[in-house]
């Protein structure tokens, strides 16, 4: 058995070990490869940056725990940006697990900036039935969320006194690992002209490119790369930026596997034909 045949029959566990090393070593060494900010992420950043103090930002946590490594860095970066601009932030979730994740992120980053729950931010919790919730909030947020996630009536929360529907919300972002932002586009943007942007996992990015081209979304933050770009824009490099070193090296490993796999295939096919 020559080297090409050995490579073609390589134990998949060797590939797993090489991939783990490709990801793990850059995390330990912190290479600091450059991250270029794309137009889509900059558009979201610029839109938030131009909002006035006290404007209301709606953040919807429409994802499960399985995609936390991508979702938490982008959610944290956006929250840091919004709190630093003194925006008022309303959090909610259209996925059950998103409510726990969102609540934690709001309180953690809110505390970092010395913000007060109920005045500077509020987390409304989870509601099932995406379509009905998004449509319902267009006419009355209180009807969809009568209480926040602490059980306090929305009518008694100072932040919510002047926020009744999408007309009072300057910008909305859905942090999602599936196609929930499509519902926001269909019902929030198309019907109520809500200014909106998705912050999605890399898997979902291509789903939203047509909406960028048609101007239905302000911009898009996609995957760990999008989170790293946002961290760079707010000048607060954290886990996403560090993760991008590992991401780049892992991509080189994958490209290496593709090249070696194809070379081995063609080399052994030639041998078989002879």
């Amino acid at each position, binding site marked *: 058995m020559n080297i090409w045949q050995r490579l073609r029959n390589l134990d998949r566990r060797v590939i797993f070990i090489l991939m783990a090393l490709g990801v793990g070593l850059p995390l330990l060494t912190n290479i600091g490869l450059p991250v270029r900010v794309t137009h889509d992420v900059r558009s979201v950043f610029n839109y938030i940056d131009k909002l006035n103090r006290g404007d209301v930002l709606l953040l919807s946590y429409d994802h499960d725990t399985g995609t936390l*490594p991508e979702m938490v860095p982008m959610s944290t970066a956006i929250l840091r940006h919004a709190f630093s601009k003194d925006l008022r932030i309303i959090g909610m979730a259209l996925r059950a697990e998103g409510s726990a994740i969102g609540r934690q992120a709001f309180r953690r980053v809110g505390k970092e900036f010395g913000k007060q729950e109920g005045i500077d931010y509020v987390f409304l919790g989870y509601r099932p039935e995406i379509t009905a919730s998004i449509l319902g909030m267009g006419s009355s947020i209180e009807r969809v969320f009568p209480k926040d996630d602490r059980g306090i009536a929305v009518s008694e929360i100072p932040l919510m006194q002047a926020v009744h529907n999408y007309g009072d919300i300057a910008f909305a972002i859905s942090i999602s690992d599936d196609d929930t932002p499509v519902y926001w586009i269909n019902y929030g943007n198309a019907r109520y002209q809500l200014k909106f942007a998705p912050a999605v996992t890399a898997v979902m990015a291509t789903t939203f490119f047509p909406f960028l081209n048609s101007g239905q979304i302000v911009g898009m933050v996609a995957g760990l790369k999008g989170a790293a770009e946002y961290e760079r824009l707010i000048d607060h490099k954290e886990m996403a930026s*560090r*993760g991008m070193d590992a991401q780049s090296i892992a991509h080189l490993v994958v490209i290496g596997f593709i090249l070696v796999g194809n070379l081995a295939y063609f080399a052994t096919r030639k041998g078989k034909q002879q």
Partner: protein
Amino acid sequence: MSGNPGIWLAAFLTLAIYSFLYRDNPIYRFAESLLIGVSVGFLLVVAFDTTILPKALEPIAAQFKNMSANGASGIPMLIWVIIPVVLGIFMFARFVPGWAWLSRIALALYIGFGAGVSIPATMQSYILKQIEGTIRPFLAINSAWDVFSALFILVGLIAVISYFFFSKAHTGNFGRLARLGTWFLMVFFGATFGYTVMARISLLIGRLQFLLGDWLGLIS
């Protein structure tokens, strides 16, 4: 290294799940079952706490209280609250063979609502706005690149739609146009695959950041 038992438990479960990469084993199956059980338990509690309680039980209790205070004048409001709850219960009638037909009433209402709401919205977002997005670049041309870009999108759109037009044989010039459509589709699939690889690696990065950082303390 962390002294937090919660971190140690999470690290053990992470390694238990990754042990599947070597081969299937009882530790992996234990961790998988635990994940499913915890997820279902969490969803049940959240569903009860955020839906059944505030949307069904509390409004019904409030209306009964209202009726006891105001008498029969509260009955219409009680009926208004009970109807959706009853329709929700009808959904579960599917599990009782003799009563399964009841679920069709609730489903019919749900499908009717869904279709009525989504058809105009989908037309607006996916058809009209996308047509607008294809034509609009031609109205804002400032350079040769803008011309190329606008034409590229238009040609791509027509070619891909041609590929999915099955009422005419894909032969001659039409066949060539449809084949061009497959090239555009392949670029899309390639981009999607690339993004998928990136997403999966991101998940591995997240777990390794946890293991090397939070657990072993090797990342500052």
